[in-house]
């Protein structure tokens, strides 16, 4: 056997039942706090109804450029972050992620839903910062440090030792501005809530959906991915699941969006990648020297509808999306997929565990909902979780 290359990303495959008591899908979605792009894919049907129902509740987030000390403002804490004393259940969750910051070479700050401010600082910044942290696990020899501060504690107020020290450090040693996105969400309903930003310049943005369609393509039905009751996935199933993932990936390339202000090279690259989705088209007969791709069997000729959005999206919203998608699939008698991309440069990802970048900062997942009969009470699904080089689930 050949030695395995060490710097490899991973893909975890899971096969589960959506209605089982363990609620695997809900655990999975909640364990992944920072999501910046979502795509819904519906096979062989129109997406208008779905688009209307998901845009009913407006989802928004804020773009802010400010120093991190804004989070220590007492009224800001009171309104957005502080846990209510005495109640275990939080009514709202606050998410923040700095943008245009690169994890391996720059300082990154995030606030996860549980009210922890997580700073990933480069060695030089950390040595001049003044708060105790620990060396990041995956970046060799203390090049990067992780500092976690619980900013949601009711005792985190002026006069508290931790608060005062944190404030001094942020005011004096990390006073530069960060570009960041933030949002607050109702834990029960998943609706976006306002963030109190009285004295900070901000830009309120709503999550906007775009829809596109790929027509005249070879459309597999993925029926072979369904396993009989009690059976465990084997290697054949694994191969088929990976083929399905490849197909989904190519369909996704067809709906690829530009990031804001792409460079010329990025544009060309995107165009080339978009061309790849041609491999799915019925009329495509490439020279086998160029491509030997074949669509997973059995397939029919059909179309897919793709809905895509970008922005800081909360797990609660994704939960709602999954429910809506499921209803739609049931009504239309088709299969669908939900793909979520996480921020590449988050210091934490799955289940609050440390995340690294190194060669690729992947932390994405796709939930493929298989087609079920109209009267079936179960919903089987395949989940693909993509992990970066050193990440753990």
């Amino acid at each position, binding site marked *: 056997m050949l030695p395995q290359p060490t710097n490899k990303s991973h893909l975890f495959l899971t096969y589960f039942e959506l209605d089982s008591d363990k609620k695997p899908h809900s655990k999975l979605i909640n364990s992944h706090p920072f999501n910046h792009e979502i795509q819904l894919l519906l096979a062989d049907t129109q997406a208008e109804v779905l688009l209307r129902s998901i845009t009913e509740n407006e989802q928004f987030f804020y773009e802010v450029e400010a120093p991190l000390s804004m989070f220590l403002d007492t009224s800001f804490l009171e309104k957005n972050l502080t846990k209510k004393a005495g109640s275990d259940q939080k009514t709202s969750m606050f998410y923040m992620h700095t943008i245009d910051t690169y994890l391996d070479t720059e300082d990154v700050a995030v606030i996860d839903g549980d009210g922890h401010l997580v700073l990933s600082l480069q060695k030089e910044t*950390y*040595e*001049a*910062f*003044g708060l*105790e*942290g620990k060396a990041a696990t995956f970046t060799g020899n203390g090049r990067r440090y992780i500092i976690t501060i619980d900013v949601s504690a009711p005792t985190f107020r002026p006069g508290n030792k931790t608060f005062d020290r944190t404030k001094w*450090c942020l005011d*004096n*040693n990390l006073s530069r501005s960060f570009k960041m996105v933030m949002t607050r969400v109702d834990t029960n309903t998943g609706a976006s809530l306002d963030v109190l930003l009285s004295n900070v310049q901000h830009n309120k943005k709503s999550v906007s959906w775009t829809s596109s369609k790929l027509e005249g393509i070879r459309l597999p039905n993925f029926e072979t991915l369904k396993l009989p009751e009690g059976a465990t996935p084997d290697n054949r199933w694994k191969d088929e699941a990976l083929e399905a993932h490849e197909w989904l990936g190519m369909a996704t390339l067809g709906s690829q969006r530009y990031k804001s202000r792409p460079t010329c090279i990025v544009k060309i690259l995107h165009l080339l990648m978009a061309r790849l989705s041609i491999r799915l088209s019925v009329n495509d007969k490439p020279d086998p020297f160029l491509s030997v791709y074949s669509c997973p069997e059995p397939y029919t000729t059909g179309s897919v509808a793709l809905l895509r959005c970008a922005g800081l999206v909360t797990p609660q919203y994704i939960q709602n999306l999954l429910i809506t998608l499921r209803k739609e699939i049931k009504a239309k008698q088709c299969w669908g997929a939900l793909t979520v991309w996480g921020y590449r440069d988050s210091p934490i990802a799955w289940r609050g565990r440390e995340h690294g970048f190194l060669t690729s900062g992947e932390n994405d997942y796709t939930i493929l909902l298989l087609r079920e009969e109209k009267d079936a009470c179960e919903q089987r699904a395949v989940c693909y979780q993509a992990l970066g080089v050193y990440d753990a689930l």
Partner: protein
Amino acid sequence: MSNSAKSTDKPKVVGGSNTDSRSNGSLAADATLPALLKEYLPNESEVQQTINTKIQGRKVHIDAADTTNRPKKKPAKSKIKRITSREKRQLGLYTIPKHCHRYDLFLPLHELWKGYMEELLGNTTSALVHSQKLIKADYQGAILSVVKSKSPSYIGTSGIVVQETESMLNIITADNKLKHIPKAASIFNMTVKGNTFAIYGNQIRFRAAERATRKFKVKPTIDL
């Protein structure tokens, strides 16, 4: 023999050494000795007494004395007893008592230090010259603050230096606390005459006295 002219006692001893005074057969000595003494002693009545007490029975070695087996003399202990540095530390001679941990108490020291700086730097304005003089200067009385450190809790500590040892700086902070800060793995800031200097703690890890006479070389900097 040369001694004989000097003192009253010694010459007879030396003179006596020519004969064995214990031997009864040495009549020549018995005859000549009283006459000789009579000649030298001021009082004639003392002659017999001198012979009895000082000459009779006295042993004199003619050959060199045997020194090989004699126990060596220990050097006399100095009357002044000194205590070692360790004992000084154990006795707490260097510790500043708790009631003296007051910032205002050390402000005069800082004023003194400022005067010392005036004197040391003189009229030169070049920061380079200043830095070279500062690296050899005495820091007791200076206001230092930690700007970078491997240990985050030291960062931001600022105050008057009250003691300097080989590897530590003891600082009284404005909130009247004595902080012991290691020189290693820290960078300190010091403001002198409007210029702020960064002092790399790793490079000044010497005793103050040693530092003053040391030749410092330019080193490429420097990781903490």
